[in-house]
């Protein structure tokens, strides 16, 4: 999967046709094989753009960047990224007419060892669901399967699970990189940072981290698209995907097989009511 040339062509064309102010893509880090996001505002810099199976990050996170807000933006999205974009559109965070979306029929991205990431192996929607232009051949949707990690987690009882997470979250340094890297965390001021929120005090204790991460995961329940930006950003290498995958699985099973960002206008299980909703877990 290498669309470097196509993306350079598209970006150059968009700039020459004056359709965009900024193009969000990937560039090489310059010191290793990895890539980092880049915001191209000058057409001369278009040749810096690359795209291949090392283009791991979800670029929709950059739609809340000060250089893209309110601007006309060109953007590269893989399958999972496009679902974030769909949700951002649904939640009125970006305007569709200001975007030019280059969708990728993604074949999965790889880590440093050349291994496909776990979420790419289990990917249900590899093709971009929102796009103006599609690169690659669409493969069609896969079948949702419960993640092996979640199956293992579910085999534990409540006490064990809590003990496990308390142990894991002990390593959280509350840097909030997970939040900053998440495309769906766009609040003007996060509830965790608000002065009045005595519950999530700034203390760097396990209980405060536990509380903050749990709140965060619930705010993303039914909205997380499993792009794993958070996990890649976490300096403590916390298995943050467990929180999201757990919620995803619960919602998938209980709320009409809902998966985030697949359908236009679908805000997720928390925000709609259906007579088919189960109520057996409500006391």
């Amino acid at each position, binding site marked *: 999967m290498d669309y470097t040339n196509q993306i350079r062509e598209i970006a150059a064309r968009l700039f020459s046709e004056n359709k965009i102010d900024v193009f969000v893509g990937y560039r090489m880090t310059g010191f290793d094989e990895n890539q980092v996001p880049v915001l191209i505002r000058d057409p001369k810099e278009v040749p810096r753009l690359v795209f291949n199976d090392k283009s791991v990050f979800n670029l929709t996170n950059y739609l809340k960047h000060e250089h893209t*807000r*309110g601007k006309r933006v060109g953007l590269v999205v893989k399958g999972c990224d496009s679902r974030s974009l769909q949700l951002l559109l649904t*939640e*009125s*965070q970006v305007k569709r007419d200001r975007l030019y979306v280059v969708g990728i029929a993604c074949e999965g991205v790889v880590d440093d060892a050349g291994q496909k990431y776990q979420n790419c192996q289990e990917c249900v929607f590899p093709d971009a669901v929102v796009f103006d232009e599609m690169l690659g051949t669409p493969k069609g949707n896969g079948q949702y399967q419960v993640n092996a990690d979640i199956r293992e987690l579910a085999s534990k009882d409540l006490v064990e699970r809590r003990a496990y997470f308390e142990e894991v979250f002990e390593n959280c340094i509350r840097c909030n990189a997970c939040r900053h890297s998440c495309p769906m965390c*766009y*609040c*003007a*001021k*996060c*509830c965790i940072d*608000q002065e*009045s*929120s*005595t*519950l999530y005090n700034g203390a760097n204790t396990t209980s405060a981290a536990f509380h903050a991460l749990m709140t965060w995961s619930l*705010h993303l329940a039914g909205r997380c698209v499993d792009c794993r930006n958070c996990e890649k950003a976490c300096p403590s290498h916390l298995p943050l995907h467990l929180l999201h995958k757990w919620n995803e699985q619960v919602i998938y099973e209980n709320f009409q097989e809902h998966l985030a960002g697949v359908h236009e206008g679908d*805000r997720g299980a*928390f*925000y*709609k009511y259906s007579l088919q909703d189960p109520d057996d877990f409500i006391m």
Partner: protein
Amino acid sequence: MARVGVFVCFCGANIADFVDVPAVVEEAKRIREVKFAIHYKYMCSDPGQQQIRDAIVQHRLTSIVVAACSPRMHEKTFRKALSDAGMNPYLLEVANIREHSSWVHQKDKKAATEKAADLVRMAVAKSIANEQLHEISVPVTKRALVIGGGIAGIQAALDIADARIPVVLVEKSPSIGGKMAQLDETFPTLDCSQCILTPKMVDVASHPYIELIPYSEVIELDGFVGNYKAKIRKKASYVNFKTCTGCGACWQKCPVKVPNEYNMGLDKRKAIYTPFPQAVPNKPVIDATHCTMLLKGKCGICSKVCEKGSIDYTMKDEIIEREIGAVVVATGYDLWDPKPYEEYGVGRFKDIITSLEFERMVSANGPTNGVPVRPSDGKVPKNVVFIKCIGSRDEAKGIEYCSKICCMYTTKHTILLHHKVPGSHSYVFYMDIRAAGKGYEEFVKKAQVDTAATYLRGRVSKIYKKGDKLMVRGEDAQIGQVVEVEADMVVLATAVIPNKDNPDLARLLGVSYDKYGYMSEAHPKLRPVETAKAGIFLAGCTQAPKDIPDTVSQASACAAKVCGLFSGDTMKKDPMISTVNNEYCSGCQNCVKVCPYGAIVTEEVPMGHGSKEMRTVAKINEGVCQGCGSCVAICRSMAITLAGFTDPQIINEIVSI
């Protein structure tokens, strides 16, 4: 430093028998902020309230906790006591130690006392974070909407309009009148239904304060008490009512014949029709599902014969809006379809009819000019069997409740048969005779003597055909034997069921309804005409089966409620409503989606101070907001607060126990 006063009520024996009230007071005194705590036999009584007022002044209290019954009962009473003592009434917290403790834990006094003490602790903690709030006043639109133009709707509309309040009366069918217009004579006085109803119908049409919108349906209701906005769909009638004179040339010439709903399908009407001769408004409408001009584009006879040129085949449904302050729902009833009574041969034997079909037959303007006839051969029946409780009081096939009116109208039918068919005889199979009402029992007794009808207490098990007669086999429980009656015709007193559109309408209006589909009143005894949604009232069979006198009384009661609501120019509203902190709002509009009252809209605000770039934030219409808190719960940014239930208040409550 907060200074809280705690007032614990005995509620006579209601609380004191199951909760150790003095112990609760002692517990309350141990809380640091509580500067004053007492108990009293009836806190809601005047001396009880006086103690609160005195304590506020003497002990310089900053908030008050009353531990008593549900705030639904006396929150207003105690708030008033606070304002009388010069304190902001919203500094009151009520700890419900009756419904939430003494009544539900009658077997364990110790646990009930502990729970009561906990509830008091929570209320004290919450009250410390209470803020001074002020009532909001919202303007009232003094116009009422009445949905349904049966006798209930007509009566409510007339009574409201007589108080010089404009009324919008929306009726689904082409004419008002409802079920009562189909009746012949009415129990227990046997006065002619049409004769007492049609003058009222004409009054509605001519009343200067009533806007009659026939052949229309309410499709949307937005807003809140005093300020509703209703969307009404005027169905296309294909007749211009402004120019139509109601001459009748069109329906006389129309070639299409359709079963007549007004006569229960016993005869035919035309595709362009007025439902019945006394219809109000007396203008025809075209039934689009049968008119060949509208279906196939051929015919057009009515248009040719109409001298005024009132026929307009291109007419479309029209949506109109009305601003209103209150709604009276009077959608009436339907009759239960007796098909499940297969053993009676319902559907197979033509001479088994329902009571409303019988009513149409004996009616002077009915399909048979007032003489009951057998649908099979047109002969006048001599022996008629009436079977009551068809569907009513039948858990297996129908519904559990008693339809209330069948005993009386069946009695009436025996009299009508006796009058119209000399030498006829009525047999009545019944379970009980329920004749509670003024003059009802006397009516039944007199009818039994006058008509000499045979009353058989028991259920019918089977009806079968023998020649052209129907053999009705049932039990006479009083002699304990199976009896068989040879009948020319059988009349089934089918159960009253709610209007089939009730659940949809209830959801549209935002009021609750029961398992049968009747809309629910706010309180079965003390608030029988109000719904739980302020400004929406119920009249007639919308709420439960009723006879005409009860329906009319309830309709007038609705009118009194509407007039009371509209007695002032503005309405006071509790200040427990949500507010948005623009700084925190991210504009995701989830609150807009979850708000059940449509109280949240969006507005554009500058991105930052002095910035030209705009961003979208939520904005709450304080008149519409009912303070349910859905938006607060859904807001991830915690940008919304609900006055009276702020985060500090709730967290205080949680932390206190």
